C-alpha cells in the first residue's frame, strides 16, 4: 500500500489498483466537529483538483477535492450514519470514497508522507 497526500489535506492510499481517499488528521482537527459528509455515489467521474465531496463542520462547509482523476467505485456509507468517524478515524474508517484511477501517473505529482508532514509543520 502506498500513501500520498495533497496540499489541500486529502490523502489517497493505493492498493491493487484501487485508491481510497479521505481527509487528513490535520484537516479534521482544523475543521472541528464534523456533522455531515456528502460523498459522491459510485459511478461518479471525478477530476483531479475538482470538488468531489463536501464536509460540514459545526461552523462551516468545506469542499474536498479529488487528488487524482477517476471513477468512484464505492462511497463510504458509514459516514451518513456517523459523520464523526472523520474526526475519530480520519485516515481509517472515516475514508470518503474509493476510486478506479484514470491515470496512475497523476499520483507522481502528490506528496509522500514525509513531505506532507513537513508541509503541515510549516503552516
Amino acid at each position, binding site marked *: 500500500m502506498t500513501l500520498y497526500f495533497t496540499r489541500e489535506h486529502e490523502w489517497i492510499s493505493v492498493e491493487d489498483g484501487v485508491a481510497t481517499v479521505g481527509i487528513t488528521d490535520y484537516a479534521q482537527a482544523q475543521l*472541528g466537529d464534523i456533522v455531515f459528509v456528502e460523498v459522491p455515489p459510485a459511478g461518479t467521474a471525478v477530476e483531479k483538483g475538482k470538488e468531489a465531496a463536501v464536509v460540514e463542520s459545526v*461552523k462551516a462547509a468545506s469542499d474536498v477535492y479529488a487528488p487524482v482523476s477517476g471513477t468512484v467505485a464505492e462511497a463510504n456509507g458509514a459516514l451518513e450514519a456517523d459523520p464523526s468517524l472523520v474526526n475519530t478515524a480520519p485516515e481509517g474508517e472515516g475514508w470518503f470514497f474509493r476510486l478506479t484511477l484514470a491515470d496512475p501517473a497523476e499520483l507522481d505529482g502528490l506528496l509522500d508522507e514525509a513531505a506532507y508532514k513537513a508541509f503541515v509543520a510549516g503552516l
Partner: protein
Amino acid sequence: MSDPTDSEAEAEPQTLPLDAWHRAAGARMVPFAGYLMPIQYEGMGILAEHLWTRASAGLFDVSHMGQLLVSGGQAADALESLLPGDIAGLREGRMRYSLLLAETGGILDDLMVTRRSDGFYVVVNGATKADDIAHIHEHLPEDVTLNHMDEQALLALQGPKAVDALARLVPGVASLTFMTAGAFAIDGVPAWISRSGYTGEDGFEISIPAEAAEQVAALLAAQPEVKPIGLGARDSLRLEAGLPLYGHDLDDATTPVSADLGFALSRRRREQGGFPGHARIMAEIADGPLLKRVGLIVDGRQPVREGAMVVDAEGSEVGRVTSGGFSPSLQRPIAMAYVPLAVAVPDGAVTVMQRGRLFAATVSPMPFVPHNYVRKGAPA
C-alpha cells in the same frame, strides 16, 4: 455569525484583556469584530462546549462588546429619542432589550439598557460599537454624557449551574432574577452583575475592571461546574435559543416588525411615538411586513448556512437564510430565515437553495430549545 473565521477585519485585530489566559487554556484564537477571540478550546470542541453549557455552566469572554454609560440631565428622554423601548419606566436594577433605530426604522444595533444609580448602562455589539457611539453621541443633548467604559471587561457565565458556581463566590447574587442587575464584589473586585445572557440558559453577565479580568476568570473557571467556552458554541447556543445576531439576522435594512422583535416596541412608545421610524413601523404593524424572520427546521442532516436563498416554486429568490447550522441539542440542522409572510406560519413549507441544491424546510416556532430563564415569582 455563521463563521467567525470569515469576519472581515480590515485592521490588525486587537487583543482582549484575557488574551493570554485564553491561550493558556488552549483556545484557538480567530479575528472577530476587530479582536482576536477564542472560537473553541483544545480538548473540547464546539459540540462538547455547547452541550456542557446546556448541562452545566460555560464561561464566555464577551469583552469585545461595548459597555457604555449614558448619564446626566434627561438621559432617559435622550435614549427614548433613539430607541423604541420604555426607558423612562425602567426601575433601578431593571434591564430591557432594545434597538438603536435609523430614521428609516431600520435597525442600527440591538442592545441591553439597565437603569443604574449612576445612569443608564448600555451593552452594544462589538462589531458596531464605534458606529453606535458616534450615532448616540451625535444625538445627545449637551447635558447628557456618554462614557465608553473601555476599561471594563465583560464575562458571561451561562448554564443551569451558573448560579451554583457564582453564588459560591458572590453572596446574594442568587436573589437576582432574569433581566435584573446590581453591584456586587467578587474576590474583592467590584462587579456589575446582571442575570441575563445570550444562550437561552439561566446565567449572568459580569462587568469587571479589565485589570482584574484574569483574576476573576481564573476564579470562575476553577469552579467544578464551569469550563471556558468559545464563540463557536456561543453562536450555536444563541441560534437554538432563537436569538438574532446583529450583522447577520438584523441590519439597517431590517425593521423591528420584519425581524419579529415587536416585543421590543413598548406599548407606551408605540402609542406616543417619538422614536426614529415610528410612522413606518406602525404602518408595518398594521399591514404586515413583506418578509418576516422565522425559524426553520431543515430536512435531512446537511446544514443550510447564512446566504442560502429561500426560493419559490419557480426557483426565484423570495427570502434568505441569515443564520444556519447544526443544532447540537436537537442533532439536526436549524436556521433563521426571512420568508414571505404567507409562509411565515408554523409548519409553513419553505424551499432553500444552497450551492445549487434544494433543501426542504419547515417553519418552526422559536426558540428551538426552550429558554431556561429564572423569572421573578417562578418556583425555584
